[in-house]
């Protein structure tokens, strides 16, 4: 079945199994999205927001529902990384593959569906409020027929030391597979936590992960989200990751894209109260036919907030990069500091980048800057290194690794940083 038909069929199957959900706001939200979806179509390149990212192949291909058993996820873990594993297989929570989420002081966590019964009020209050189903059929589709996802509620004044490692395994061995994870993360006042997202596709068929992450950072919360996209060459990701930030909260989000088919990240944050900080970083190191599109939205609603955004790309082969960075500085957002930069290095004549900063500023007393560059490797620097005996390939790798480290150094977990750096190094030295 093609994407839209598959979603319709999926909805009817899911509607039959709504034990505990019938009549809830959760159910209403999905029903409403489902109705809305019939009036929407998936975006085409005529849509300004999808101008450079053509998803028609994903819309037109047929999907089947896999039946998967997985004995162990050891090989999909980050070496030497201490973490709390939360594993989803084809979008559904696997308690057996996951670490225990109970008994972690200050943490309420589990699968969104399982946790609904005991956290109904807060889930009903937040779910769906950080995304907009009006403009994007992918968001609507996810809302209508979402699979499961991680629900996290970090209690006030709590630091969760170990990162949560959200591993989504998608089985595309028997046919093309669609999964629609839906994560809801609530970070209480003055809390701190780190969440890592990664998708691993099995098999050679096409997988499409249409994922939504909604984050809410209460006053003075410190939130770290690291998104690792190193999936197989037929794996596509439509990733929508939105945050709402209250006063004095800090968001650090790093999205690293290394491989895959079509990757579209829409990462946004709303700085809703004063003295909020948002740091948004992205790195894409691509080759082959990988297409990476990063759309970001930094929405300064109030005064005295600070946002900083740096996206860097190294593109080889026929890979394509897209960057669109929106910064909104609303009328009340005086004394805003907002910086944005996108820098790209093209390693081949056939790699391309389309980059566009988009600043909309209604306040007058603000400091905003943006810049984008697309260039080749610095020939002067390359010659300097070679003139010291360093072989061309190593010299390039040294320069490019240094370029990439501006982003990877923002990842606070050493094991994850090493994992990503070594993947990049392997790629560059090959």
């Amino acid at each position, binding site marked *: 079945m093609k994407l839209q038909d598959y979603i319709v069929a999926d909805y009817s199957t899911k509607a039959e199994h709504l034990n505990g959900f019938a009549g809830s706001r959760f159910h209403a939200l999905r029903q409403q999205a489902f109705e809305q979806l019939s009036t929407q179509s998936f975006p085409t390149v005529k849509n300004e927001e999808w101008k450079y990212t053509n998803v028609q192949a994903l819309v037109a291909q047929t999907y089947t529902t896999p039946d998967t058993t997985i004995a162990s996820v050891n090989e999909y873990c980050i070496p030497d990384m201490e973490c709390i594993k939360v594993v989803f297989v084809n979008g559904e929570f696997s308690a057996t593959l996951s670490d225990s989420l109970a008994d972690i002081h200050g943490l309420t966590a589990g699968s969104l569906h399982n946790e609904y019964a005991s956290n109904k009020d807060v889930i009903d209050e937040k779910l769906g409020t950080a995304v907009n189903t009006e403009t994007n059929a992918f968001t609507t589709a996810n809302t209508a027929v979402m699979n499961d996802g991680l629900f996290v509620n970090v209690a006030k004044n709590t630091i969760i030391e170990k990162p949560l490692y959200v591993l989504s395994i998608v089985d595309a061995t028997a046919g093309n597979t669609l999964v629609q994870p839906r994560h809801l993360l609530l970070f209480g006042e003055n809390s701190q936590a780190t969440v890592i997202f990664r998708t691993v596709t099995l098999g050679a068929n096409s997988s499409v992960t249409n994922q939504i992450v909604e984050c809410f950072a209460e006053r003075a919360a410190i939130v770290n989200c690291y998104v690792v996209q190193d999936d197989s060459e037929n794996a596509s990701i439509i990733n929508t990751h939105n945050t709402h930030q209250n006063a004095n909260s800090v968001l650090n989000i790093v999205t690293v894209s290394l491989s895959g088919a079509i990757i579209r990240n829409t990462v946004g944050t709303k700085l809703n109260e004063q003295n909020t900080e948002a740091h948004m970083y992205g790195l894409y190191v691509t080759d082959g036919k990988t297409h990476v599109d990063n759309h970001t939205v930094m929405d300064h609603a109030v005064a005295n907030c600070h946002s900083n955004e740096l996206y860097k790309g190294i593109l080889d082969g026929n890979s394509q990069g897209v960057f669109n960075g929106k910064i909104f500085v609303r009328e009340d957002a005086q004394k805003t500091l907002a910086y944005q930069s996108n820098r790209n290095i093209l390693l081949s004549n056939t790699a391309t980048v389309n980059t566009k900063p988009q600043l909309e500023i209604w306040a007058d007393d603000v400091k905003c800057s943006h810049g984008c560059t697309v260039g080749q490797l*610095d020939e*002067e*620097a390359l*010659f*300097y*290194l*070679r*003139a*010291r*005996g*360093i*072989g*061309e390939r*190593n*010299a390039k790798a*040294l*320069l490019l*690794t*240094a*370029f990439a*480290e*501006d982003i990877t150094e923002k990842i606070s977990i050493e094991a994850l940083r090493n994992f990503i750096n070594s993947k990049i190094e392997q790629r560059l030295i090959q």
Partner: protein
Amino acid sequence: MLQIIGLHASINGKEILKGIDLTVNPGEIHAIMGPNGSGKSTLASILAGREDYEVTAGTVLFNGKDVFEMSPEERSREGLFLAFQYPVEIPGVSTANFLKTAVNEVRKHRGMEPLDAMDFLTLMREKAKLVEMDSSFFSRSLNEGFSGGEKKRNEIFQMAMLEPTLSILDETDSGLDIDALRIVSEGVNKLKSSSNSTIVITHYQRLLNYIVPDVVHVLYKGRIMKTGGKELALELEERGYDWIKTESEETV
């Protein structure tokens, strides 16, 4: 050691070197002087392997091997070293990491085992002393934010680390204060032996008081117009280049 025979080179169709002949024997120090734009850095860059220039005629042999058959890294591993007139800033690559890679590539070429982290650090400390460079530079990004003089010192430090047989110092003295000039020159002199050679490109006799040349050449408009002993440098200091320009016009 080095033989340059009838070297012509141009960039973007403009001829810069118009027939250079130069032989440097082991143990010799040659100075190349000449007015701005005469082609000194061009010559140095071509020897080091910069690819922007088109060599239109001539041969260059380094230890008997045709350098135009060698990549820049091969030349370096074979013992050729260029101290850049304008060292490049390389953000994100630490001086230590860079030098470790370079030293080990050169060692590999010479059939030596790579140095481990400890031995490497010891070597860096020892060589840094030679140019009185503080070890705090090791962890800093290569040349990034270094002052003009620090960059030049760093070039000689790298030279000390790589132990070349032929060093070309392109205006290493410019931008150095008097003390630094002395320190850097003493460093170069300590690295000097009867088996390695140096080409010093400079505008100032001052440097040649420290690094005493065996031969002085004057490069003008892409040609070596005059060659003499160290007293030629003194004469240039006194008289400038005009008399050479006049002589050259007379010969043309």
